[in-house]
């Protein structure tokens, strides 16, 4: 007797419908929602959404980051320009960026990243320089303010060419001030850096799965060896339960160990080398104008 199973069609329809609903009414994050903004794919250090920067400014930033590649004491500099912060103060906007996981600028060891955020905000030209906790000592808030004041005519101009010039000069001033404070301190980067935590976790998971497979196979073979004479069904039963237990045990121990909160995730967005250094601790430092 065949049982007509049209149930699977209903299930499939249900899945398609729910998928459609999810996609159609998914979260409407605006393009300028800081938690959604990701660094530019080609060059994470320069995300020029407001199309303000010129090649000269880009070159300046790239040069600094090359220096930072070989010397840990040199700060990585990244810049983000947006048209609008959607009503948020530029400080809150930058806070949200640095609290997320996409903007881990600066060496992981030194936490000396510098993130510059510029927002047109309808002509207000708000600009903020956020300093990592390791950069604060060399570039305190008061100093940043003075540099803003020095460049304010260009920065607050409605002529974008002047703004670009202002930003370029600001970066030069920042570098000069920072290097003066450093006083010649350098720290050559160790090429054999420890593997990112994500990689280690991945390897552990693979090993754990192999371990589970080995245990299950061993138990199965034990069962098969001893269960050949009588009641093979119950022997299969007990080894199945053991396999389930071990699989569950290892899976749960691993999962509770690697639970990250949203603000805690320290994965380097670009897998190291050529991307941000992973220095995530900005601590809300910096100043805006």
């Amino acid at each position, binding site marked *: 007797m065949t049982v007509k199973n049209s149930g699977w069609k209903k299930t499939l329809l249900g899945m398609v419908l729910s998928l459609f609903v999810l996609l159609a009414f998914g979260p409407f994050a605006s393009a300028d929602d800081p938690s959604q903004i990701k660094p530019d794919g080609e060059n994470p250090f320069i995300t020029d959404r407001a199309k303000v920067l010129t090649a000269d400014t880009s070159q300046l930033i790239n040069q600094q980051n090359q220096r930072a590649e070989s010397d840990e004491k040199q700060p990585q500099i990244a810049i983000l320009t947006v048209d609008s912060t959607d009503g948020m103060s530029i400080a809150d906007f930058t806070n949200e960026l640095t609290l997320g996981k996409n903007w881990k600028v600066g060496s992981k060891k030194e936490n000396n990243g510098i993130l510059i955020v510029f927002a047109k905000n309808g002509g207000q030209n708000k600009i903020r320089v956020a300093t990592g906790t390791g950069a604060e000592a060399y570039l305190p808030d008061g100093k940043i303010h003075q540099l803003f004041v020095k460049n304010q005519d260009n920065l607050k101009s409605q002529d974008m060419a002047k703004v670009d010039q202002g930003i370029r000069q600001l970066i030069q001033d920042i570098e000069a001030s920072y290097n003066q404070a450093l006083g010649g301190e350098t720290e050559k980067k160790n090429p054999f850096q420890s593997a990112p935590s994500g990689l280690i976790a991945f390897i552990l998971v693979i090993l754990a799965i192999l371990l589970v497979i080995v245990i299950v196979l061993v138990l199965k073979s034990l069962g098969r060896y001893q269960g050949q004479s009588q009641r093979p069904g119950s022997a299969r039963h007990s080894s199945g339960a053991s396999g389930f237990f071990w699989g*569950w045990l290892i899976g749960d121990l691993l999962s509770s160990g690697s639970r990250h909160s949203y603000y805690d995730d320290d994965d380097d967005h670009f897998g190291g080398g050529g991307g941000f250094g992973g220095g995530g601790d900005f601590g809300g*430092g910096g100043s805006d104008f």
Partner: protein
Amino acid sequence: MTVINENTPFYKKRGVQVTAGIVAVFLILIMMFVSSSNGLNKQEQNVDAATGEIQTALQNRADLIPNLVNAVKGAQGQESAIYGKIADARTQYNQAKQSYDNASSQDKKTSAMQGQDRAFNLMVSTIQENYPDLKSSDQMGTLMAQIEGANNRVTYERKKYNQAVQDYNNKVVSFPSSLVAGMTGHSKMAYYQADESAQKNPTVDFSK
């Protein structure tokens, strides 16, 4: 042909298998309990660490007040009443700090920190109200930037703290870790609310 009382291996005896099954279930339950409990404790540690960060930020910010007081000393007609008010607010701050140091629970710590926040804002608004004509000289601009920077650090650490508290509270209320939370004495923690008076005076602007 069935043979009665045939020698069955130990592990195949029905009684042994049932017992093994019960023990396995027991072990699973214990494992789940332990992992939930560890998760709760770990989250509690995160909250603890975040509290320390806020306290540091609060203290660094409060340390700027003497600079502010010195900056206004040279300005028009020092009324001793103003300094009296500032001194009172300073006392309030120190009392709140004392409460924090003596706090026996997380919620007591949070409310002590809120007290520190209020006292700081009182100091700043006292100065702001009484020196409205203070011109923004270069020195004042720099000091203003420092105070705003300090304010932002407190805001930042508070956000991190509230996120840690949220993660902890989620664990405390969701099943099945809620059962474990009840058994191990973990209860929901309070969030660190921003001081309302700070929202009325968002920036220290002496040019206004």
